[in-house]
């Protein structure tokens, strides 16, 4: 809505495309990756932006589902997901050649610095935006991108090589809750020691993980990098600002809610009302 304080996503860059599935891959641990020919979105997508995928002909499921554009190769877009609900189970059943209508790119993405180091913090499926984001950061002149990636178990980690795609300037450090690979514990525990000389911190994951990250960064105090951004999630009805369903509590006073689909999904860490967000039920409940 135009009463919003933050800059809104540019809907003029979004378009409807038919989409054609070119590959469906199981990555193990329940993670899957979909490659879809979407020339407009592939050309227009910036890091952290998303597309609304029509997972099946309505009414089942009725609404499109938002997915981060994970990577782009030519006119193909990659999407990472886990078949857990009505929509994602239908995505998992797709075959190369199937049609997959999409609207995008949507939302506001990450701010790409012109140089320096970038720290990406990826919790679970929050890995999704970072193959594209890391590549764009490198193309913009960033000397190094460090991806800190955590998941419950080793099997549920997004394969490290898919973040870097052969670029030695993109490094991946892993963490697992059960210690089956990398650091044992939460990925947010690795952040504090990596902040020196960082131009931007980008994070994506479940809202509680992002809240934990905000707390870690709060403790870091004066040493905060110039850009600290988080990609949030909210149940969405439309993805382009009309249903007002994707409200997120923000700090800029008056009890205002921001729309995740237009002021987000990427927001400055300082803009989010983390206390209010922590009181909400997890997004997956809806």
């Amino acid at each position, binding site marked *: *809505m*135009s*009463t919003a304080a933050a800059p809104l996503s540019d*809907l*003029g860059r*979004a378009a*409807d495309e038919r989409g054609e599935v070119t590959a469906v891959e199981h990555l193990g641990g329940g993670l899957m990756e979909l490659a879809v020919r979407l020339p407009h979105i592939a050309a227009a997508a910036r890091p952290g932006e998303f597309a609304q995928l*029509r997972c099946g002909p*309505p*009414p*089942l*499921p*009725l*609404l*499109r589902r938002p997915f981060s554009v994970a990577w782009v190769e030519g006119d193909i877009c990659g999407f990472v997901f886990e078949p857990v609900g*009505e929509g994602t189970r239908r995505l998992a059943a797709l075959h190369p050649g199937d049609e997959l209508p999409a*609207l995008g790119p949507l939302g506001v993405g990450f701010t790409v610095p012109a140089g320096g180091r970038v720290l990406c913090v990826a919790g679970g499926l929050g890995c999704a935006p970072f193959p594209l984001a890391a590549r764009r950061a490198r193309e913009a002149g960033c000397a190094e991108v460090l991806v800190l990636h955590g998941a419950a178990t080793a099997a549920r980690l997004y394969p490290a090589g898919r973040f870097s795609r052969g670029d030695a300037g993109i490094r991946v450090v892993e963490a697992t809750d059960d210690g089956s690979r990398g650091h044992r514990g939460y990925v947010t525990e690795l952040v504090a020691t990596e902040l020196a000389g960082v131009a931007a911190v980008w994070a994506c994951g479940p809202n509680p993980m992002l809240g934990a990250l905000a707390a870690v960064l709060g403790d870091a105090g004066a040493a905060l990098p110039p850009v600290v951004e988080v990609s949030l999630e*909210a*149940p*969405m*009805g*439309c993805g*382009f*600002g*009309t*249903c*007002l*369903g*994707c*409200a*997120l*509590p923000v700090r800029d006073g*008056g*009890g*205002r*809610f921001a729309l995740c689909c237009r002021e987000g999904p990427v927001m400055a860490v300082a803009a989010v009302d983390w206390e*209010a967000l922590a009181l*909400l*039920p997890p*997004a997956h*409940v*809806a």
Partner: protein
Amino acid sequence: MTVDLSVDLGRGLVLPNPVGVASGTFGYGFEFEELVDIQRLGAIWTKGTTLLPRAGNPPPRVAETTGGMLNSIGLHNPGVEHVATVYAPRFARWRVPVVVNVAAGSLEEYVAVVRRLDGVPGVAGIELNISCPNIAHGLDFGRDPAAAARVVEATRAVTGLCLVVKLSPNVTGIGDVARAVCAAGADAVSLVNTYVGMKIHLGVRRPVLPRAGTGGLSGPAIKPLALAAVAAVRAAVRVPVVGIGGIASAADALEFFVAGADAVQVGTASFADCGAALTVLDGCAEYAARHRLERLTELRWTPPADRAEPSAAPTSVR
């Protein structure tokens, strides 16, 4: 033969065609303006607008159900002053008529909002929402025919604009409410608003939506209920009826014309397909041409009279 698709809702509000977009599913038109040709629509029925800006309900606000969705937005809107001064001048430059949906928590608030919109260029009419299930008191006016009539009388007194009253289906006798608002001066009625519903998350053993756990159900799941409500209202009043509820295709819309509608609104379907209303419009026009209809209201079905005499052999026909 060209089909005349225009619909006269009264008091100068003539829709160029019968297919509009429903309140709360199209914002104030600006987002969709960037995505589809909104000028071809029969009307844009705006988001529910209140006297003061409202932040809306805490999240989560939407949840998908089988063939439907629940919402509990809580009338998140910028307030009537913003609509009148910032949005309406933009509406005035559009060809598509914009009907502002008005919501309120009290009689005085309804009157104040409608008075503010009266005579504002760009505002083609008022849709009086006496049926929002997601705010305290939202349904009170819509449930009681006498209370509904008071709101219509009071707002009728402060505007010359076409007054379309949006009815709630969450009532025992929707025909009684329709009769009451028409007697009080409504030019037309629109229905249905959403049905009160609930989705439960078994994993956490509680409703998905916050607070009381309820929200408004919309989408294909409600279409049969909405058709029955439209037929009941058609039988009760003579004013134009705007049919709403689960319309996603031209066939859906045509069913509403059979049930008694003069115009329709496409709601939830626009979320999954930005051009849904335009597809519905094109399909209706094509159907009318193919079946050589002069007006879509020719599709209307007339129910048998309530206490029909046992059918006797037609004596007049020999």
